[in-house]
């Protein structure tokens, strides 16, 4: 029996806009096992960040359930939610804007400890902050530095230390390395893998960078316009992508090698608007294999082989 840490069931998040209802996340279900990393990929506007935030209730979900250790996060009141936040934390994309510019490294990392009142004495508090800095590889001399004095990689380490301050079980990593240079990106990715190993953390890793996601994830979910189109084991997804969108997405990644030639599937046009989406498959308008049924009926996510889920009518044939 797999030990499911997080279960997301029929999660929906709609936003009211001037032009109508924006379906940011539309009926998405998945679960994450303890100690696992689930990668969430998709292009801008597909709802991947919204999922991450809705799980933590930084956005109030419109519908559905989010179970963390069997407790429905969406039904908690304010106090209960605050207590549960110790168990789940988030690292944001842009370390340049997600830190308070008027707080020093020490204050930023210590803030969650103060809010949750977990330290009994000032001494314990200081020790915890220094311990966290060491964990994420920040030199002690930076303790009084302000964010503007740090480079992107170090700022992101502060963001990670903050998220780890309360010993969470589950972390949402929302594009944690996309603002960083490649050499720094590798340092931060290694740090996150090490932390997962040492502390048994569970990650939801959100990114648009497929090679990064492949590197760090056990399973990968592909999103398109608020819907999950494919979910599979990492190796399986890259070896045998089934959904036409996944195929196009994988083929679009430029490969830094000369000995590999990929057959590129070029998609026509742009991602359509998620405001009042048409019935049927969301990808139908750009899909080369679109059938009549695709524009009428929304495909459900179905298991086509053990652990491999696809939402596409083509799989029915």
């Amino acid at each position: 029996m797999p030990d499911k840490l997080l279960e997301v069931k029929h999660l929906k998040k709609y936003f009211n806009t001037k032009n109508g209802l924006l379906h940011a996340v539309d009926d998405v279900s998945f679960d994450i096992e303890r100690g696992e990393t689930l990668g969430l990929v998709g292009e801008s506007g597909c709802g991947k960040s919204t999922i991450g935030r809705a799980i933590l209730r930084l956005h109030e979900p419109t519908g559905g359930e989010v179970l963390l250790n069997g407790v429905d996060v969406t039904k908690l009141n304010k106090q209960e939610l605050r207590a549960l936040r110790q168990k789940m934390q988030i690292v944001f994309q842009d370390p340049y804007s997600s830190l308070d510019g008027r707080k020093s490294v020490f204050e930023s990392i210590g803030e969650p400890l103060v809010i949750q009142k977990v330290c009994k004495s000032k001494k314990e508090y200081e020790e915890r902050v220094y311990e966290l800095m060491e964990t994420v590889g920040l030199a002690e001399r930076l303790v009084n530095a302000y964010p503007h004095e740090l480079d992107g990689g170090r700022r992101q380490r502060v963001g990670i230390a903050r998220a780890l301050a309360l010993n969470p079980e589950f972390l949402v990593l929302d594009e944690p390395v996309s603002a960083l240079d490649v050499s720094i990106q590798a340092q931060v990715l290694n740090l996150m893998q090490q932390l997962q190993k040492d502390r048994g953390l569970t990650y939801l890793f959100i990114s648009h960078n497929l090679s990064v996601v492949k590197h760090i994830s056990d399973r990968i979910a592909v999103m398109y316009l608020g819907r999950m189109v494919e979910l599979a084991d990492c190796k399986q997804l890259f070896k045998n992508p089934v959904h036409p969108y996944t195929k196009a997405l994988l083929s679009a990644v430029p490969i830094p090698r000369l000995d590999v030639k990929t057959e590129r599937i070029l998609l026509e046009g742009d991602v359509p608007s998620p405001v009042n989406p048409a019935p049927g498959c969301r990808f139908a308008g750009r899909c080369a294999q679109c059938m009549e049924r695709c524009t009428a009926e929304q495909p459900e996510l179905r298991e086509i082989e053990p652990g491999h889920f696809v939402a596409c009518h083509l799989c029915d044939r």
Partner: protein
Amino acid sequence: MANEKLLEIKNLTVHYQSYDATVHAVENLNLSLGNGETLGLVGETGAGKTTTVKSIMRILPTPPARVVSGEIFFDGQDLLKVSEKEMRKIRGKEIAMIFQDPMTSLNPVMTVADQIAEVIRLHDGGSRAEAHKKACDMLELVGIRPERGSDYPHQFSGGMKQRVVIAMALACNPRFLIADEPTTALDVTIQAQVLELMKKLKAQYQTAMVMITHDLGIVAEICDYVAIMYAGEVVEYGTREHIFNSTAHPYTKGLFACIPDIFTEQNELVPINGLTPDPTDLPQGCRFNPRCPYATERCRQEHPENVEIEPGHFVACHLINGGGNENA
């Protein structure tokens, strides 16, 4: 390959002067490019890539920027010596530039056709109607319906805005195109569309191009030559095959090692230790020495010169220059 190079940069040095320090943005840079060729300029933030191309266009903010020395020959003419008036004739006509962020490089209060027509009228003259017609043709060329020419930039998506910028850059058939991270702000599937378009147009018009990028995948796809920049210098230069198949400089090797490979299973990435140096206080000797796993005493003392290790493949590293290739 023609002997006569379209672009030749010789010993270019650019500094930024702040009130208490000098930023050594580009130091002693040499590059050349022939007709129809594409050069990839690769490096991390602060390596001096954008400063280099901005000095070709002469659009560096001066002050604080200052071209300390060097020559930039375009078609035999030193661009650093021509008058501002003549430069305006070259900019947009002979040399065009595509900027990184299509969201901010278009004028929000002009329709896109008017913006493209503006370049055409400025350089090729002609009536408003003719220029407008040509602008619509350009839009069609990059795959945008000409009717949409009367729309404003905010009505387009990111990928389409970048196409408009490309259309504008190509409007006067420039011989030389500078693309500063043209696809960084775009999603992968849209990036694939734009790259495909640029490849097609390059083949069609035989435009020479300098492409700034930090994505080695894009380099593999589109570039003929590659220059790897680190802290204001070119540390390795060669054809695409040289850089990918016989990588020589430790920094270039480090770059390859820290990108996750989609085809192989690897448990841990090998990051380059440390950070890019402070450009106001560069290390003595080789600039990469504090981060280089193979650094020797000589690397800490003496600045390495560019050495041709095989025809057309230049590397600035002591290890390769005489010291034997320890890491082969």
